[in-house]
């Protein structure tokens, strides 16, 4: 397969959409539950983000492959079925062969099923597009999600405990211990940000920050409204 296709204009747009323009959290306001529930630390955010990304990649692929088979009346049950099966698979395999990781993430894995963005992407993109773009979309949306997870987790962790990526070695393996940092030693801790209210508030400020950045960028380039509304249909890479 030729990787250079990933740099063609439609794919670049998918990439941009996923990472920034149409970011799952910051723009679409979806996937909020895992976002707020597990971002007590940056490490948790990273782990959950990666797991979600993997599921999105697979689910978008699976949905796209079978899109011609699925009647619209029962598409939702089928999509959900597919996603749930994938998530359960991930859960089972992690539990069996990466038990330490599973112990940390275990509680949150079933939550992935109900992460609305996975179904959202299946509906909005994968059920209408060929496999390759769909999978790329899943990957990029997942990546955009992961980035926000890590940032939110990071901000909450630093402000509430003064550390960053604590426990990274437990979750991701000894190789990641280098990530663990103490930003503010002897920090008293601003507990608020670690608790549910703080999650919402920090997220509010994050969205405002994106808006600020966008405004700065917008003066340079301007995107017409129509383009945002219509999802691009991509030809090429047909299965």
């Amino acid at each position, binding site marked *: 397969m030729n990787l250079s296709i990933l740099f063609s204009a439609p794919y670049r747009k998918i990439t941009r959409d996923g990472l920034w323009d149409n970011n799952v959290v910051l723009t679409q306001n979806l996937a909020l539950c895992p976002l707020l529930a597990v971002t007590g630390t940056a490490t948790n955010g990273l782990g959950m983000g990666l797991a979600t990304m993997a599921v999105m990649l697979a689910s978008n692929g699976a949905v796209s492959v079978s899109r011609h*088979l699925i009647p*619209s009346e029962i598409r939702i049950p089928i999509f959900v079925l597919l996603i749930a099966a994938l998530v359960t698979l991930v859960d*089972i*395999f992690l*539990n069996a062969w990466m038990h330490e990781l599973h112990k940390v993430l275990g509680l949150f894995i079933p939550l992935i099923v109900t992460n609305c963005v996975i179904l959202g992407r299946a509906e909005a993109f994968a059920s209408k597009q060929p496999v390759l773009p769909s999978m790329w979309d899943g990957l990029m949306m997942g990546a955009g999600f992961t980035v926000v997870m890590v940032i939110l987790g990071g901000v909450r962790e630093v402000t509430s405990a003064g550390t960053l990526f604590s426990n990274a070695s437990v979750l991701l393996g000894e190789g990641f211990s280098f990530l663990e940092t103490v930003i503010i030693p002897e920090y008293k801790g601003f507990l608020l940000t670690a608790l549910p209210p703080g999650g919402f508030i920090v997220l509010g400020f994050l969205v405002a920050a994106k808006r600020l950045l966008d405004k700065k960028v917008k003066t340079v380039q301007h995107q017409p409204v129509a383009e945002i509304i219509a999802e691009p249909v991509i030809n090429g890479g047909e299965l």
Partner: protein
Amino acid sequence: MNSKPEINSVSAKAGKALEVARQKLAIWLEPANLEKLRPQLRYQAGILAGFALLAAVLLGFADLATRGVIQQRLQEDLQAYLEQVVPAGLHDNNLLADTVQVNSSAAGLGAEQTEVYLAKKQGEVTAVCFKFVAPDGYAGPISLVMGVDRNGEILGVRVIAHIETPGLGDKIEISKSKWILAFNGKSLNNLTVEQWAVKKDGGVFDQFSGATITPRKVVQAIRRGLVFFQSHQAELLTDRH
């Protein structure tokens, strides 16, 4: 003799059938055909069932392949906890295998039945350990595991799970603070009832500044655990095997 051609013909037949099936599938999968099928009720039910079948098969086999492994991992986890509260030197048996069920409905341990793991050296019970719960922690129940030696002295206590406030109540975790180690060696005999309390209430155990409730409730629960052990001491220490 003539079995060979038979086999050949059978395999040829099978091949042909396969080929036909493939072709049929290809025709069936034609977008135009699917277009026709999709609105049909029969098809819809079938396709949902089909996907369910697919998922079930997939998961079924995945589960078949991993069930044993997962069971084992869980045992290992439990074992790891038990080892923390019962020193390895005290036993030569498999703790997980040597258990008795004890009625604990009156002991305030948060369960009707408590599974007690027996540590044995050369067949003699040297220590017991069991899980119990402090149901009234600041934010919710606190799960603990405790090892007690023959004389009712604590060998070790660990918190398995809790939802106390991070930064305050979570100092009961061994990874956050050494506080929990203060119970090692304590028993109902070497401390009076009044001493089984946090310092603020006139006892010997530290509280955390700003968070007294969590340690208070943990102390109370551990003491209840010891009382439970005491009341079943004889029964547990006599080896019935």
